[in-house]
């Protein structure tokens, strides 16, 4: 299988007849390419798990077609889809050893014993499970068990896609790093399509070549981690990615300037006056905005947060709370008057939550 295609896929749960349908997943068309790693990122209830279940076969979408290469598999049962799935908690066979666990899918498919042994050892090497092969799976730590769950999916050579449903949920936070790099290593070593569902931006951005940001059943943006960070297409993407996320100030636009509560921001493009009733906001990331003693926009510092490696300053502007990076050595304290500077090119205009480009100034 080289690709998975979503053709007008949407899913609504059956409700009372005549009532408007409630879509858990709004219409989506997308082509997932073999060998690439994708992440479905979004808050709880955004539809990412529903989408994953449609791809894996646990849910049959109420609309649209699912194609593996050019075959319609919308209604094909899970076990015939050549996919592997790793769940939130490790799924292992308690009574078997690690080696038997890994060999299980191959035995069920009638593979020959030596071939099984070779394959099991190959995957165990990849996942650092070799020393544990003879041990009972039951007594191992959560992350080892999760690796076994993953290994069972990878041993089958007919698997062309691996689906992950928040697999690091039960892992000890101190060990999440190791597992993340393992997943990355697996992705590099095997040419598989990998789809990863999570609500944690670190997991999504680390793991994926492309991230699908979702909210309320709709896909807001698909892009590389850098694209999502630098050019969010939707205000939610700007807010959700980044820790802390983007600041949004309600502004009025006048040509190449934005006005908020007496403050004036220079934009690097000209904008036509927005229509009446449209929500106009200025979005800027704390990473590209600094608070110092001198600058174009006057603010008052509410709070200073020392994060060790960087210091953030919280302030209020145009009635909204915002945060920016505090310039080291400025000697500012809460309550002081200070100034905000937004780096050129990093002040974005969002009209009705969609990022809008202006015409060159």
């Amino acid at each position, binding site marked *: 299988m080289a690709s998975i295609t979503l053709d007008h896929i949407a899913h609504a749960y059956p409700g009372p007849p005549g009532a408007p349908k409630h879509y858990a997943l709004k219409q989506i068309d997308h082509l997932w390419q073999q060998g690439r790693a994708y992440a479905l990122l979004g808050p709880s209830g955004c539809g990412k798990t529903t989408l994953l279940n449609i791809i894996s076969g646990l849910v049959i979408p109420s609309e649209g077609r699912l194609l593996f290469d050019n075959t319609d598999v919308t209604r094909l049962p899970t076990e015939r889809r050549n996919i592997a799935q790793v769940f939130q908690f490790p799924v292992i066979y308690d009574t078997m050893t690690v080696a038997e666990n890994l060999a299980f899918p191959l035995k069920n498919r009638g593979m020959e014993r030596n071939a099984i042994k070779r394959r099991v050892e190959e995957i165990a090497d990849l996942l650092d499970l070799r020393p544990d092969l003879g041990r009972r799976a039951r007594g191992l730590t959560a992350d080892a068990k999760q690796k076994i769950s993953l290994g069972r999916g990878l041993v089958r050579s007919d698997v062309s896609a691996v689906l992950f449903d928040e697999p690091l949920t039960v892992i000890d*936070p101190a060990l999440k*790093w190791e597992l*993340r790099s393992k997943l990355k290593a697996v992705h590099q070593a095997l040419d598989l399509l990998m789809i990863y569902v999570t*609500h944690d931006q670190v997991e999504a951005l680390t793991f994926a070549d492309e991230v699908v940001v979702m909210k309320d059943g709709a896909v807001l943006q698909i892009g590389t981690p850098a694209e999502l960070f630098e050019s969010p297409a939707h205000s939610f993407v700007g807010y959700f990615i980044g820790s802390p996320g983007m600041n949004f100030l309600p502004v009025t636009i006048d040509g190449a300037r934005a006005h908020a509560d007496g403050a004036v921001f220079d934009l690097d493009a000209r904008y036509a006056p927005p229509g009446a009733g449209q929500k106009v906001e200025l979005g800027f990331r704390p990473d590209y905005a600094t608070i110092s003693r001198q600058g174009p926009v006057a603010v008052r510092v509410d709070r200073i947060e*020392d994060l060790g490696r960087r210091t953030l300053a919280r302030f209020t502007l145009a009635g909204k709370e915002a945060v920016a990076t505090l310039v080291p050595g400025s*000697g500012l304290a809460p309550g002081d008057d200070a100034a905000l500077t937004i780096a050129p090119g990093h002040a974005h205009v969002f009209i009705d939550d969609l990022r809008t480009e202006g015409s060159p100034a």
Partner: protein
Amino acid sequence: MSLELKQISLKNGQQSVIDNVSLTFERGTMNVLLGPTLSGKTTLMRLMAGLDRPTTGDVLVDGRSVVHVPVRRRSVAMVYQQFVNYPSLTVRENIASPLRVAGLPKAEIETRVREASRVLQLDPYLDRLPAQLSGGQQQRTAIARALVKHAELVLLDEPLANLDYKLREELREELPKLFAATGTILVYATTEPTEALLLGGTTATLWHGRVTQVGSTPAVYRRPANIDAARVFSDPPLNEMTVSREAGQIRMPDSRIVPADRLLPGIADGIYRIGFRVEDAVVSPRSDAPLAFPGTVAVTEISGSESFVHLAVGFATWVSLVLGVHEWRPGLEAEIRIDPTRIFVFDETGALVRAPEPHAAAAAAMV
């Protein structure tokens, strides 16, 4: 009210779960218990609340011993990691429950419930059952229940750990403000150093049931008293290496020799453990600078605004922080350079010998 733990120990058979802990908590303060899982944070909180009795030692409130006072009669509220609400009561009834048990008049209960609900944005959900709420709303209900009690001691045991990280960010902002007005003693347990730094106040680092350090949060961060406290307070983990200083020279783990004054000036001979944080490890393409350690990139973890490059340098895997979103592809050859002015030096027993000098602004914040 002030709470004091005096040489508290809790033994489970032969095993020491909490080992000789002495802490003081003042009125209206934010206190963070920072430590990895199973380091004793929850146990310590239970001892503070009166749910468990210490094997030895004393718990004093305003100077009086309360070890024999049952939890019911203490002024304490607790919020747990798993959103604990009465499943058969509506949100309104849940919030009101401690007040009903205390026997407050109905009008008073009404006022307090409405106040808590407003502050925690639960007004639209007052008549729903917990099962009908999202995780964040359930936890807000639990927090509201703790808020209405106007307790003098509020214990929060990793309350945000089960929430989506964005929700966690929001609630983490709100929590200190919620309880600030009432002069409560807030005790917050967490495994994440970033949370501790964001909450501020005083931090006590825990390691295997012992308190390794207590102090203002930025101070503990910048001057950990020993290597355990430093490890607990670093996320990602501290980059470490063991070196030996002898006869004016320092031997590195990869066997190269460096003049002693380069790295450890003014320190006696001996074996030292050097630690440096990710922001002080600079990753760059291979050069051959003297304090640079060459290696291969294992993975780059990207967290919105920061990228963490994991570099395998042979004897260890070190992590370097790069600001912004930059992926260093696995397999790339690179190096990490150490800045001798930014290292922590610990002796063989783990005690701190030298810490990097903080910036002027940070030094002011530490006071």
